[in-house]
């Protein structure tokens, strides 16, 4: 098999294609907006705006990989956000140090429990996930409204507000560099230890220079990102913002899910169930338990995204997360997740979310009305899936010819 430059560097060609697409979109928007798009200020905002959808898209990949769908994520986000807001502002004593933490934990637990319940209805009672979560979309949006009869609850605890980002909710320049350095160190360690382990088993490793180039490229991306975040200063001051907390949460979620998907049995089983459910069953994979866990994880992440949105808005509102399921599914699909199941990556979904948010952000800068923005995002979704189908057919064709 011819591997090409990307192959010999061990870089996923699809992810590289997504990165290339993103770069083109950014350059075009930069030109169209007369140089506003690629400024630290806008990129910093773009990163924060991507967080809510990105957090949920990471979980949605796993759901779709198992050949299922979760239409209820926006409603779970709204419901969990409202639960947190009501508990924080009206039930527990406001102003205590533990209030934001306890209410956040309860909100996340509610999300995970809702997800687990939906997963169980699908896995044990064989109700299609589409139906279960369509019902969930109605039920949990309704419950969010019923909790306060539609009232908006505000203001949130100041510590909790940090979760939403904003001017206070960033970690500053030193901590951002530390995060970047930790990322580079972890990346280097993981790649080199995997390499050492393969050598111990007698595999001929890739040439060391390709490993070095790969690590350098990825390190440059990480440190470049930190540098951009650190070059944005709070308006009319020279206080460096650095990485905002919602972006940090997104990074943490994406790394955790990549780890789950690539290095744990759980991830292997998720992909096996999506690839061939019957084969997974005959191989002794505990499919029902895995499905419940996937939906519980999705519910947890939806609640986390709801908490971030609530903190960002500084209020528990009924509209939180409305229609988010559509952006989340679109992000996963643009990121190369196949609705047929069995394939998709967490990193791809994050890039998909970033691509969608970039288009939206750029069109806002251009002053396009929201109706037109929806039309364009819809067209992009179709083009993305079409390109993906072409890609798969071509890849399938060459493999077929080879075999």
């Amino acid at each position, binding site marked *: 098999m011819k591997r090409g430059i990307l192959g010999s560097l061990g870089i996923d060609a699809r992810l590289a294609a997504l990165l290339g697409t993103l770069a083109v979109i950014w350059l075009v928007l930069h030109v169209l907006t007369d140089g506003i798009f690629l400024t630290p200020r806008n990129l910093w905002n773009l990163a924060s705006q991507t967080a809510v959808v990105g957090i949920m898209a990471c979980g949605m990949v796993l759901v779709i990989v198992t050949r299922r769908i979760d239409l209820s994520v926006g409603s779970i986000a709204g419901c969990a956000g409202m639960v947190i807001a009501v508990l924080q502002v009206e039930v527990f004593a406001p102003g205590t140090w533990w209030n934001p933490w306890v209410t956040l934990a309860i909100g996340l637990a509610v999300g995970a429990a809702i997800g687990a319940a939906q997963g169980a209805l699908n896995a044990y009672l064989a109700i299609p996930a589409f139906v279960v979560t369509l019902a969930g979309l109605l039920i949990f949006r309704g419950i969010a409204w019923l909790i306060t009869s539609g009232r908006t609850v505000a203001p949130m605890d100041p510590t909790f507000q940090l979760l939403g980002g904003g001017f206070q909710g960033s970690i500053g320049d030193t901590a951002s560099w530390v995060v970047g350095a930790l990322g580079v160190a972890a990346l280097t360690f993981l790649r080199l230890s995997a390499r050492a382990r393969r050598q111990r088993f007698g*595999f001929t490793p890739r040439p060391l220079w390709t490993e070095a180039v790969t690590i350098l490229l990825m390190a440059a991306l990480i440190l470049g990102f930190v540098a951009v975040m650190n070059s944005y200063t709070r308006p009319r001051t020279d206080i460096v913002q650095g990485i905002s907390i919602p972006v940090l949460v997104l990074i943490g979620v994406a790394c955790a899910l990549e780890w789950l998907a690539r290095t744990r049995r759980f991830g292997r089983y998720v992909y096996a169930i999506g690839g061939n459910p019957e084969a997974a069953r005959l191989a002794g994979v505990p499919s029902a338990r895995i499905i419940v866990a996937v939906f519980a994880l999705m519910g947890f992440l939806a609640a986390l995204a709801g908490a971030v949105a609530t903190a960002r808005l500084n209020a528990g509102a009924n509209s939180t997360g409305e229609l988010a399921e559509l952006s989340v599914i679109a992000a996963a699909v643009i990121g190369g997740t196949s609705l047929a199941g069995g394939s998709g990556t967490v990193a791809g979904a994050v890039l998909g979310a970033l691509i969608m948010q970039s288009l939206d952000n750029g069109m806002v800068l251009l002053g396009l009305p929201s109706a037109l923005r929806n039309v364009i995002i819809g067209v992009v979704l179709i083009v993305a899936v079409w390109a993906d189908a072409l890609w798969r057919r071509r890849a399938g064709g060459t*493999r077929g010819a080879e*075999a």
Partner: protein
Amino acid sequence: MTMLVEMRDIHKQFGGVAALDGAELWLEAGEVLGLLGHNGAGKSTLVKVLCGAYPADRGEILLDGQRVEIRNPRDARKLGIETIHQTLALADNLDAVANIFLGREIVKWGGALDQAAMDHAGQKVLARLNPNFTNHHVPVGSLSGGQRQVVAIARAIQFQARVLVMDEPTAALGPAETAMVGDLVRRLQTEGMGLIIVSHDLHDVFSLCGRLTVMRTGRPVGHVRTQDVTQDDVLGMIIAGRMPVAA
């Protein structure tokens, strides 16, 4: 001598239909048993009971003379019963090694998948079956039929199976690959494994199996030694459910 496997009076209903109605078979170590019958005779259902895909409604399964419970595929695998299904039951989106170890992954301390160890062991067993097998890192969905069969066989023999069930092992294969399967069956037999081959192909069955069990409408027609019967006798058993006079 105690039998390696004995299935007695197995019953299985699907809806109102009795797929198995008192089915039985037995198998010694180092023996190759052919399981024959029409479509719908219940032979696939019977081996699916043995491999845990369908638990039996009623009946006994004995391994080394001990009664065992096989409620799911995991139970069967733990007892050393491996199955190569007619559909091969491969996850097409995973590579060969991931399929071989599916459900039985090697993990490092802390539970992380030990990919290097699995690649090492997996490539070794694949090479043993087919030295030309090199597509280790492509999804098995893009492999040829013969290569997919190699992956399914590799999965079955990687874990020191005592009983190997092959459901229509050569139905989708070309002549060279069929010969490979035949060689493998004989080699595993000399290693003391017990094999059950479900097949339509009388020629294959006569060249590989020492004994035959013929089924019809979920019941055994009879059990005969291959050397005692002709292909016509066996056809009579399959079609008319009639035991040959000589046997």
